[in-house]
């Protein structure tokens, strides 16, 4: 067993420097690496380019890094629900690249799988296709998109073992598996970190080969963005 365990978030995030490109898992506030984000705020690392489907809300998730103006550029598919984000974007302080969600996921997956580029129909004929190569396959137009290049991927999983194997829970899975191994170094923060041999290999979602560092998050707030319920009959 190759041991990927590190003992703290500080140790896990070593080497993340100003100006780097980070991938961060999560959809909305669901399945975000909240301990790592808190530590990035603490460290004050700035000029970051962040690849993440969303940008958090004003006071949680990546919104915390935005508040401290640590992000230079966001690459996302949807950035509503964040007034500070909107302010920085409209004032030109923050560079924003909006791309289709499936393209975002596939550009991560391509990086993970060693595929330099691919064709997708998403965005053909719209402004996201401007300046990109377009080609017809089976009578339909497609746009060429490239694999992302990132320095660090930071993901959040439910359970992990010291070998770096990961299991995700519910829809907190989202972009996290696609980002594993899609950057030079992948850091996984988990709710439960178990000795190797504790996870059934049949149930592992992401094998440890894609993970360089794994640590147990100290605290997971798991904030709910839209609490919707129904009444009992």
């Amino acid at each position, binding site marked *: 067993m190759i041991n990927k365990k590190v003992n703290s978030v500080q140790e896990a995030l070593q080497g993340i420097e100003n100006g780097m490109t980070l991938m961060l898992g999560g*959809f*909305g*506030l*669901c*399945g975000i690496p909240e301990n790592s984000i808190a530590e990035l705020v603490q460290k004050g690392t700035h000029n970051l380019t962040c690849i993440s*489907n969303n940008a958090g809300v004003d006071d949680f998730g990546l919104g915390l890094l935005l508040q401290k103006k640590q992000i230079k550029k966001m690459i*996302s*598919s*949807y*950035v*509503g*629900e964040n007034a500070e984000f*909107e302010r920085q*974007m409209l004032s030109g302080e923050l560079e*924003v690249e*909006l*791309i*289709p*969600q*499936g*393209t*975002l*996921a*596939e550009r*991560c*997956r391509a990086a993970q799988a060693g595929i330099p580029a691919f064709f*997708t*129909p*998403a*965005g*053909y*004929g*719209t*402004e*996201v296709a401007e300046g990109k190569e377009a080609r017809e396959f089976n009578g339909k137009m497609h746009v060429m998109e490239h694999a992302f290049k990132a320095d660090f991927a930071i993901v959040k999983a*439910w359970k992990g073992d010291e070998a770096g194997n990961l299991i*995700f*829970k*519910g*829809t*907190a*899975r*989202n*972009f*996290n*598996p*696609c980002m594993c191994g899609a950057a030079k170094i992948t850091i996984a923060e988990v709710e439960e970190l178990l000795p190797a041999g504790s996870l059934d290999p049949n149930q592992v*979602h992401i094998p440890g080969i894609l993970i360089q560092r794994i640590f147990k998050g100290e605290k997971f707030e*798991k*904030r*709910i*963005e*839209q*609490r*919707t*319920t*129904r*009444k*009992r009959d």
Partner: protein
Amino acid sequence: MALDKNDIAKRIAKEVKDGYYVNLGIGIPTLVANYVRTDISVEFQSENGVLGMGPFPYEGEEDADLINAGKQTITTLPGASFFDSGFSFGMIRGQHVDLTILGAMEVAENGDIANWKIPGKMVKGMGGAMDLVASAENIIVAMMHVNKAGESKILKKCTLPLTGVGCVKKVVTELAVMEITPKGFKLLERAPGVSVEHIIASTEAELIIEGEIPEMQID
């Protein structure tokens, strides 16, 4: 009488057939799930990674790790499954989802749709809409026929930045059901009590009208 949002959802629910996997967008489309016949088998897909979505949880049973694409807490039904975002859009791109229902700001007679950006005003992003409209074979748009200023959203040509080109098949509004044909919008049904003349007057695009136009069956 023009329909309300729930009535639009009720009408669209009739398009959902036994054995369909369906992706519902945010807004009116989400309401469609409430009106699908209970004697057919349908599974709802949410692009953040779940098939077999159920209703909202009971109070106190919300799970932060279980949400839909609108970031609302949900439940799952027997037979549900979870998957990652890459897989989810593979499912969409690979045309395994039978029906996509989404909202729009504008639809044009050639099937173009705009629903993600108002330059200088609203730039929240396209989310999964561009992937969905580019890949789905069957796309129904649920929208209001006119905007708050009373201007038609059913156009000859979209004025806002596009989400997708030539992709919409059918549009259901508070006034009418329209199909997009190679020759443009064809009026299929009118809302109960709404005249064809009223629909024509509320529509910027030309409407193809053949014979008597029946009223929508809502219930």
